[in-house]
């Protein structure tokens, strides 16, 4: 483990024991995030990207979930081995989380200022006045106008964009090293979405925090991330720097995703939007061999026989495909 890696996930396996078998939501996932870097984690709904985020926070409901294997090193310590009381000191303090639904992620019966203050109270011993100062300072950081009066408001009095700013303020209140953003802009409309993403980029520069950015939106990834990991049915299919991934995607799944992005203004006759044939396999009935082979454009002999290994293509570009063996 190198010191520059803030977070290093090795062979993480998060399974759910449900009626009908074991659901392998995250299977053998390895990721690294460097200090000050944004890692984008993309994939379709149900591919396990949110479960990966929740596993880092150890917020998987046990049972039915369990972390079946792997290690998660954060600042050199395997946080999967920490006792719960130690883990609580990490959550919200060193690693914090931003959720998808700002409308429901705030407690309706407390003022927003109180909820941000709660995070500070949990992790730091500050006087009441200092806490209030810190809350106002954090509100200013996330560009909430008139923070002195807005801290007295209740969540229902705020718009979705403002509430998401409060969520980000909660995540930032204790100056975390890593923020896990689980689709932070998905529930917002497009203009607000742009504002929030812009804000997060600025905050990353101002605070130097690393971000694990979970989304299904490739456009958002291009704007936010330095490195990208593409996830499919619980496994990482391709990992690369953002430019490399967009300019020369290697995995057929990534290529399919790229060509599914609509392009505006090609000419009068818009070409038909291309799609990836088939549907995401059920996690109960995963195909044999490569998980993607029945939807794939490339078909080699070994595709339905054995699972491809992760192949290093150089320039920190990794791909899980038989084509490159």
């Amino acid at each position, binding site marked *: 483990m190198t010191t520059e890696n803030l977070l290093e996930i090795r062979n993480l396996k998060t399974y759910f024991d449900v009626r009908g078998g074991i659901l392998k939501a995250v299977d053998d996932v390895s990721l690294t995030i460097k200090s000050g870097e944004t890692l984008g984690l993309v994939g379709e709904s149900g591919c396990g990207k949110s479960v990966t985020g929740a596993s880092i926070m150890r917020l998987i409901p046990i049972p039915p979930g369990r972390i079946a294997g792997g290690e998660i090193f954060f600042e050199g310590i395997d946080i999967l081995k920490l006792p719960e009381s130690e883990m609580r000191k990490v959550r*919200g303090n060193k690693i914090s989380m931003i959720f998808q639904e700002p409308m*429901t992620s705030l407690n309706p019966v407390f003022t927003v200022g109180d909820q941000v203050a709660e995070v500070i109270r949990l992790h730091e011993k500050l006087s009441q006045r200092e806490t209030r100062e810190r809350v106002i300072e954090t509100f200013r950081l996330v560009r909430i106008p008139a923070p002195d009066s807005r801290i007295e408001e209740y969540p229902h009095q705020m718009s979705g964009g403002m509430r998401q700013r409060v969520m980000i303020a909660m995540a930032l209140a204790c100056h975390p090293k890593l923020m896990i953003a689980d689709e932070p802009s998905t529930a917002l409309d497009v203009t607000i979405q742009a504002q929030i993403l812009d804000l997060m980029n600025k905050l990353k520069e101002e605070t130097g925090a690393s971000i694990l950015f979970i989304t299904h939106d490739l456009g958002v990834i291009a704007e936010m991330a330095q490195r990208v990991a593409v996830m499919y049915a619980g496994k990482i299919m391709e990992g690369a720097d953002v430019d490399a991934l967009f300019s020369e995607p290697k995995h057929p799944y990534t290529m399919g995703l790229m060509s599914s992005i609509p392009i505006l203004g090609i000419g009068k006759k818009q070409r038909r939007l291309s799609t990836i044939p088939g549907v995401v396999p059920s996690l109960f009935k995963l195909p044999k061999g490569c998980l993607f082979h029945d939807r794939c454009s490339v078909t080699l002999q070994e595709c339905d026989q054995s699972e491809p290994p992760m192949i290093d293509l150089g320039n920190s570009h990794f791909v899980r495909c038989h084509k490159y063996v």
Partner: protein
Amino acid sequence: MSLWGRITSSEDRHPFFDQIEKLFKNRTGLAGLIIIVVFSLAAIFAPLISPHDPNENSLYDQLKPPIWNQEGSTKNLLGTDDLGRDMLSRLIYGARVSLTLGIVSVGIAFLCGSLLGAMAGYYKGWPDNLIMRLMDIILAFPHILLAIVIVAYLGPGLRNAMMAIGIINIPRFARIVRASVMDEYEKDYVTAAKAVGSSSRRIIFNTIFPNCLAPIIVQASLGFGAAILDAAGLSFLGLGAQPPLSEWGAMIAQGRAMILRAWWVMTFPGIAILLAVLGFNLLGDGLRDALDPRLRD
């Protein structure tokens, strides 16, 4: 309400005020509230407003009828009982007993029930099973019978009656709190609270519990009425308040023997119980309408 009124009321105020306003607009709920306020004031200022000492015997004024009767006098507005004690004063002091009793027994049921219910709803699994089966056992006994058993064990008296009524009402609170906690547990803000490092205890009491208060408040109000009724029943059986304490149930028991000669000795405490219980039930219904989000317009 005008359009502007609506907008400002929902934007600028805490939802609590909207609910209070809604309660005031509900006529039956308001009626219940008024009854309870009148009874509470009577209880608080009993020494100031009661015309006589409730325990003062008067040999010459035994079984005086109320004032509107030919034999009635202005000295005793609602007549006297068989020892010549002033009925009105005894009723006013009785409100003190009944309200304290309601507060204490509902308090016991509320605290224990909320704690047990919250733990059952939060931890699920075996703690849930253990707690709720225990509650089922308590509920399996006829209500008043269990209270009688507890009082018989602890010994008769007002204090033990309050405890008994508190204990038999624990399951009602436990069930409601458990259901609300389970409901709230699934909400995103609970996950968010975990993600900032709150402990389980903090999540139960500081995050979830304040969101479950609406149904608990309703149950507390309805339980208040039930507690007064139960206590009156226990006192009537001689297990609750002991003479000479002026308690409504005990007064009915005492007046029972002379219902044909002096109907007022038994009737007025009965009406007092009826009004108090009615008041709490009406308020409870009104609160439910005001607090239940599904009934909001």
